[in-house]
């Protein structure tokens, strides 16, 4: 086919495509320069012929500024369908009131490219059509030069630019790397968008499988305090993802799934396909009024966005948003909540934050390097993971290690299990601590010890205290203060059976009747700790006491109880 057969020039100066549809045999695609040349070749004809009403008697149909900038003039015009069959430059028409600009995508062959314009996904993605006879999708590709698609796109109509001619191009094919390229206002001619479209080696689970991982949830959308580095001070994030029963690598895959092409999931009120994460951090000041939602649409003169977090709903001094349209707010502009109606005022220039693709960050398969502000439950993080809080500070989770005692009987007359510090001589260290002051009160809640409380002490657990009658009473503690060497225990009456000043006390990391076949404890690794393990059952099927030494190392530890009958 030729451009002459695929296009016609109608009497009302409409230039229309009449060839085959995308993907059909014979569908034609032509550069804007070819269109211009064709029009000019007809315009000098003595008389028109066929369906092309163009000859010397007609007004000049087009003008070329450059090979890539063609202006249709004197009322000649193309429509959206004709535009789908042109590429390689801009078409300006209607006296400049309507403009199609050229887009050229640099990406791997077959990339499915999405275009977001004016905050919405463009539904008619004709550029992803597969040409007749081709093996990969993408119109007008130039594989040798790494070009996957070329097309022209309407960026101005009715005399007004559409969202400032801003376009956002992205790839979100599940199983492949995600990427985006922002054209912050197209220029006349060809606008290049570089995208990445390659296998994601850490995203190799079938989409249908990941669809079932619904136990991965965001516990709280909005401003979240999480103590990810276990320093007793929360850092703040805009999410609190819980990986449920999944691995951290599977969390990554699930979050990709939620934001994949074609998703129907919603994140922070946005379709997952449109969700990108925080683009701007905005300082706020007075005047302010009302109470913002945890997240909501916001707007200001010159732009809209989706607020993902605010540090105080009623008196926020910072909010974090994803810019949807226009430009970020400027100093002094009023920002209004679309749902709440609350208002606040932008202070200074917003800080533009770097996006990650996908929005959650990077995965190594066994660890995640979180995107800016992405929060994950502290208990779901390991020492290999990294996250960045809303101040963009790198937070390194501590090495949470787990020690398990396996092989326990929990049904019926269950086993009793105790894991405590070893004394170096193969026995339980009952003097890990000594009391600093006698415990004699009727409602004691604080236990002060002389020795430093080890850094690997669980934040809550049980403490045994040697009493006047020689017994080692067990006390649950809910917190401890390493500085004052004080444990906070459940109120207990020590008045009738004191614990003397200097009496022994020791942590019991596990000290219970087994409720499952495996009992364990998790703590932050500090240094290798020698442990004493004891398992007993004196019920109707008694066993010999199982006692052994074990170690809690940087990778945790475990022992399996050997249950030898003692009947």
């Amino acid at each position: 086919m030729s451009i002459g057969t695929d296009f016609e020039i109608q009497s009302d100066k409409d230039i229309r495509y009449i060839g085959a549809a995308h993907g059909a045999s014979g569908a034609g695609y032509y550069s804007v320069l070819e269109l211009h040349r064709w029009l000019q070749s007809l315009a000098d004809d003595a008389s028109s012929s066929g369906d092309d009403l163009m000859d010397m008697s007609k007004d000049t149909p087009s003008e070329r500024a450059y090979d890539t900038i063609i202006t249709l003039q004197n009322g000649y015009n193309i429509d959206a369908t004709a535009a789908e069959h042109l590429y390689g430059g801009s078409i300006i028409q209607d006296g400049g009131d309507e403009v199609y600009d050229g887009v050229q995508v640099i990406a791997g062959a077959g990339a499915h490219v999405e275009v977001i314009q004016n905050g919405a996904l463009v539904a008619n993605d004709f550029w992803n059509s597969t040409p007749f006879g081709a093996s990969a999708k993408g119109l007008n590709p130039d594989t040798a030069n790494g070009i996957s698609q070329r097309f022209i796109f309407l960026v101005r109509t009715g005399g007004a630019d559409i969202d400032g001619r801003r376009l956002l191009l992205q790839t979100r094919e599940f199983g492949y790397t995600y990427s985006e390229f922002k054209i912050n206002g197209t220029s006349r001619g060809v606008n290049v968008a570089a995208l990445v479209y390659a296998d994601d080696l850490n995203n190799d689970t079938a989409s249908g499988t990941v669809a079932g991982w619904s136990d991965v949830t965001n516990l709280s959308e909005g401003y979240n305090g999480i103590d990810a580095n276990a320093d007793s001070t929360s850092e703040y994030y805009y999410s609190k993802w819980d990986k449920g029963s999944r691995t951290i690598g599977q969390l990554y895959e699930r979050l990709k799934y939620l934001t994949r092409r074609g998703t129907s999931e919603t994140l922070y009120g946005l379709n997952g396909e449109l969700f990108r994460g925080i683009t701007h951090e905005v300082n706020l000041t007075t005047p302010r009024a009302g109470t913002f939602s945890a997240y909501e649409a916001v707007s200001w003169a010159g732009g809209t966005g989706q607020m993902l977090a605010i540090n105080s709903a009623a008196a926020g001094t910072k909010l974090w948003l994803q810019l949807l349209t226009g430009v970020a707010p400027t100093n002094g502009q009023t920002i209004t909540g679309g749902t709440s109606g609350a208002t606040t005022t932008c202070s200074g220039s917003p800080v533009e934050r770097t996006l990650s693709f996908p929005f959650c960050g990077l995965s190594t398969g066994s660890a995640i390097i979180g995107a800016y502000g992405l929060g994950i439950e502290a208990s779901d993080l390991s020492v290999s993971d990294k996250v960045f809080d809303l101040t963009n500070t790198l937070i390194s989770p501590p090495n949470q290690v787990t020690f398990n005692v396996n092989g326990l009987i929990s049904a019926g007359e269950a086993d009793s299990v105790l894991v405590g510090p070893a004394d170096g001589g193969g026995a339980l260290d009952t003097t890990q601590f000594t009391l600093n002051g006698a415990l004699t009160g009727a409602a004691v809640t604080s236990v002060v010890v002389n020795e430093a409380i080890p850094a690997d002490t669980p934040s809550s657990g049980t403490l045994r205290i040697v009493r006047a009658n020689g017994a080692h009473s067990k006390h649950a503690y809910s917190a401890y203060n390493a500085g004052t060497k004080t444990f906070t225990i459940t109120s207990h009456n020590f008045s009738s059976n004191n614990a003397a000043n200097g009496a022994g006390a020791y942590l019991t990391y596990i000290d219970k009747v087994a409720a499952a076949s495996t009992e364990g404890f998790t703590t932050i690794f500090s240094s290798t700790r020698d442990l004493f393990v004891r398992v007993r059952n004196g019920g109707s099927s008694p066993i010999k006491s199982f006692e052994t030494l074990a170690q809690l190392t940087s990778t945790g530890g475990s022992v399996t109880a050997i249950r030898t009958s003692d009947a």
Partner: protein
Amino acid sequence: MALSINWATKVITVPQADLSLISAGLYQLDVDAFRLALKDIEDSEDGMGFPDTHRHNTEVTLSGVTYSRFVEIINGYTVTFQDTGTPYTVKCVGANHNLGDVKNVNNVSLIVGNSAGLITVATGSGPTAVDIANALVAALQATQIPVDAKRMNGAAIIGDGSESDPWRGVGVQP
């Protein structure tokens, strides 16, 4: 009052009420039941912090004969039978045991009731026959051995070694 352990002194107290009355002044202790009661205490919240009270080897059947279990109180624990002020005797049944070794002295006497079958004498640490022979030779060489010679070269020796009656063979004149 039930069987109890004083964790500070490691004294296991057996109340008289836990014993079976056989006759006036004579009670019976089922040692197997006793050790099971100890195990029940050991796996309690109180007991979990402390070492085992005893070691137990169960019954063994050999050639149709069932050899009794044995129970050994260990780790410094001792046993006190409740002293009621009136002397009484406790007869132990059901296991061989070392209660006699760890019982605290009071007005209660104990009939141990242990019964040994074939016992094993330690071997391997005593002297060998060669050791004995060598030691004997060494001892002989280290001393003068008194000898009372009666015969020499198959013939009897006579005489008393004096000048008038010197040592000589039978039939030889002085």
